[in-house]
């Protein structure tokens, strides 16, 4: 008989050490770290700023009646809405092809879906500048000098680059959810291909599209560095305004009010995305996958054009970034790399590269790697702990738990944590904590899937053989979840390596990581050195992933 896995594990004699129920403890931990601590910190700072409730209300009224607040809110909605809509428009045909056909380059485009999670926004910014900027490759090819990068167009372009792979990934899953049996039934009833698309596929995909739109909207709504750099002072979103309110206007109470306003929007978006996402069918028989070569010639030409455009759109800016890092006054060379590693190349009497970065390049990489190592490890510990606690009961709310950190923006998280903990811990630990929370959704999901594929009977068998909790962890969970842990660590570390918001907000000049150094180099117009740093970053990240991958492979082959 199929019995619910529950009571003995949570309340019975076989439970985890301690008296708390596992899922309850996990939910408490996640809510505390992702919501209570940052929001509490911001509100506490706001309270300290005004010292009385009426004064806080007055400040709230002032902020909420200010034109800039609503202009920023409106712009946040505008840029996020347009970015998300364009992403989906571009992703719909591609996702159809990914779900229905096999073709060359399919694996690469699917791998890009995960890369989006770990690519630092500063790298995307640099890539967009290299390609679309005034002195960018596009202008050089066209022989023009136009530039739209420092405008909403630049923001939307960068968001498109950042989210297209995610959009493709989400919509592909939507097409895959369409049951082949429904397609067969529609065919047998005599519906045409176009009719099937209109009457079956699109209504079916509709929910997935809304869910994807909302999630991408959320990413763009909370985007920080892209808007900070491309928006300048003219185009400010709520996220940037919160930062400015805290550090430029020095008004924690104003920042707290804006955080609450932002939370209202993000909470609503997450709730809506949950509502729409819930109705998606599970367990469908996947649709048939055909080779693209079996299509008619015109169809293949059209698909070829589409994928060429997508590849160009995604890879040309990155290619331009690499190319321009080697381009020095009309010839290829290593000048940018020399100046980056030797600290030379200051503009006239201006500060040198190391002065601009406020650290040597070696120090920048060392700091980045130390942080990545610490945050990756902390992410693994948190993700493992929460997933383990939740694995002991079929907890239906784990998807919501995964979305919870998305409600709170990177700036809110960093500012809030900073307000509460800066007196007790160093900036470094604070940054590690923030990056751990940032990486939590992804790392948790990796571990959750790992635990889901871990049959409960393994644990029960071990218990029946007399194994205690720690013995089981040591002899069963760690050896079996090792590859999962490695993967989780890689993503946790990569998110840390690419994090700009946390380090920028909390480091306050003392902690210089690669994205911060890139930001400073861009700010001081040391563009070639910034590009060279970007290329070095790609190499380091790639190196970390390859190292982990080879370690994982050797482990699987039993050579370690």
């Amino acid at each position, binding site marked *: 008989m*199929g019995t619910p896995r529950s009571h003995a594990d949570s309340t019975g004699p*076989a439970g985890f050490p301690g008296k708390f129920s596992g899922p309850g403890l996990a939910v408490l931990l996640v809510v505390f770290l992702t919501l209570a601590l940052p929001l509490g910190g911001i509100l506490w700072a706001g309270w300290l700023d005004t010292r009385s409730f009426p004064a806080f209300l007055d400040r709230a009224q002032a902020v909420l009646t200010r034109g800039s607040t609503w202009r920023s809110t409106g712009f946040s909605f505008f840029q996020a809405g347009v970015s998300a809509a364009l992403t989906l428009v571009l992703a719909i045909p591609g996702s159809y092809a990914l779900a229905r056909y096999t073709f060359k380059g399919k694996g690469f485009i699917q791998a890009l879906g995960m890369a989006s999670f770990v690519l630092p926004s500063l790298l995307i910014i640099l890539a967009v500048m290299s390609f679309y900027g005034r002195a960018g490759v596009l202008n050089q090819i066209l022989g023009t000098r136009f530039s739209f990068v420092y405008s909403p167009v630049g923001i939307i372009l960068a968001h498109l680059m950042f989210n297209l792979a995610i959009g493709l990934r989400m919509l592909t899953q939507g097409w895959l959810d369409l049951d082949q049996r429904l397609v067969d039934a529609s065919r047998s009833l005599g519906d045409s291909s176009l009719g099937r698309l209109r009457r079956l596929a699109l209504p079916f995909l509709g929910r997935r599209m809304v869910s994807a739109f909302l999630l991408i909207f959320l990413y763009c709504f909370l985007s920080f560095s892209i808007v900070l750099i491309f928006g300048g002072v003219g185009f400010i979103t709520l996220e940037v305004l919160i930062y400015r309110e805290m550090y430029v206007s020095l008004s924690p109470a104003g920042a707290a009010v804006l955080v609450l306003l932002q939370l209202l929007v993000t909470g609503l978006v997450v709730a809506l995305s949950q509502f729409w996402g819930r109705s998606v069918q599970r367990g469908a028989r996947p649709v048939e996958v055909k080779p693209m070569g079996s299509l008619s010639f015109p169809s293949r030409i059209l698909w070829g054009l589409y994928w060429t455009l997508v590849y160009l759109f995604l890879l040309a800016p990155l290619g331009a970034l690499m190319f321009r890092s080697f381009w020095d006054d009309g010839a290829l060379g290593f000048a940018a790399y020399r100046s980056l590693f030797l600290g030379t190349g200051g503009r006239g009497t201006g500060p040198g590269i190391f002065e601009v970065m406020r650290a040597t390049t070696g120090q920048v990489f060392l700091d980045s790697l130390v942080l990545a190592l610490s945050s990756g490890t902390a992410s693994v510990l948190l993700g493992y702990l929460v997933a383990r606690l939740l694995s002991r009961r079929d907890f239906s709310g784990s998807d919501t738990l995964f979305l919870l950190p998305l409600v709170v923006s990177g700036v809110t998280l960093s500012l809030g944590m900073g307000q509460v903990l800066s007196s007790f811990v160093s900036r470094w630990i604070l940054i590690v904590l923030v990056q751990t929370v940032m990486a939590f959704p992804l790392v948790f999901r990796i571990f959750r899937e790992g635990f889901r594929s871990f049959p409960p009977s393994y644990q029960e068998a071990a218990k029946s053989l007399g194994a205690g909790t720690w013995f089981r962890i040591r002899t069963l969970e760690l050896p079996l979840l090792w590859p999962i842990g490695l993967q989780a660590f890689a993503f946790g570390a990569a998110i840390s390596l690419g994090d700009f918001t946390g380090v920028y907000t909390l480091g306050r000049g003392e902690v210089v990581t690669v994205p911060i150094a890139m930001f400073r180099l861009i700010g001081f117009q040391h563009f070639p050195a910034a590009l060279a740093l970007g290329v070095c970053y790609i190499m380091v990240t790639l190196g970390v992933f390859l190292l982990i991958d080879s370690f994982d492979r050797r482990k699987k082959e039993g050579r370690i």
Partner: protein
Amino acid sequence: MIEMKNVVKEYGDFRLQVDFSVPREGITVLLGSSGSGKTTTLRMIGGFEVPDRGSIVLDNQDITRVPVQHRNIGFVFQDYALFPHLTVGENVAYGLKARGLSRARRVNKVAQLLELTGLAGFDHRKITTLSGGEQQRVALARALAPDPRALLLDEPFSAVDPERREDLGSYLLDLQRKISIPMVFVTHSRQEAMSLASTIILLKNGRVVETGPPSSLYERPCRAFTARFLGRANILTAGQWGGVRVELIREPETGIGEDQLYMIRPDSLEVRQCTASESFGLNITGRTYLGGRWEYQVESGEQVLYARSPEMFQIGQSVVLECRNREIIPVE
């Protein structure tokens, strides 16, 4: 001996309430269809589920609240739950290591158990290279390694080919005789239950319907449910005898009432051709070859009976069914 004393477990609308004991000798089989509560019962003995009420006693020790890892009860899972990252030897030694036995003692014990289970020389084999039957024996060896006080088996043969099941069953019976500890075997297969059990505990909707040796439950069940669950059974009420003329039939006793149920196994009904003087209106409406004999579906009006015979009769043929009085069993 395992004693389940008024054990109650509730899941929403489902309520399991059992009271039985498992002797040290022989194999006790918990039999029932899906949802009858047999696995929950086994998991309570194992310690994976905690009863809401009642107590579980093992060799005069109340183990109701004893944690799984301290019960020392071996458990063989339906999917074996062999640890894929460990070799055969390491799997078998797992429980010994958890108990802190020295390496030398572990090696010795593993060798003994692999010998006992017919897997000598398999120590270093990977689990994934084993057949279903071999995996099943590794699971048994692993469960037996810490010298358990009882052994619980949750449908352990369900993933094994039907041909291998008989061998494994004989092997298990042989093992039981050697180690002599209480063994509880869960299955929904009546054939498996009949061939393995010294005692069958039949469950239905969370209650014990009947308990007893297989032959007794099959031949002289107290309940119609037991009769039907353990094989083809003709169940008739006293009032239904009027339409069917069966020779030598035990007439319904006066005072019992027409609702009294009777059970006759198809093997107890002999089929013979009607003579010219007999016209009971019993016709063969269907037949199935069972190998060496036939099972016939015999109808008279709305009444359907099943009877078996080595002789071949034709569909539509009129027949007479005969039965000995002692094979007509009153059931509830």
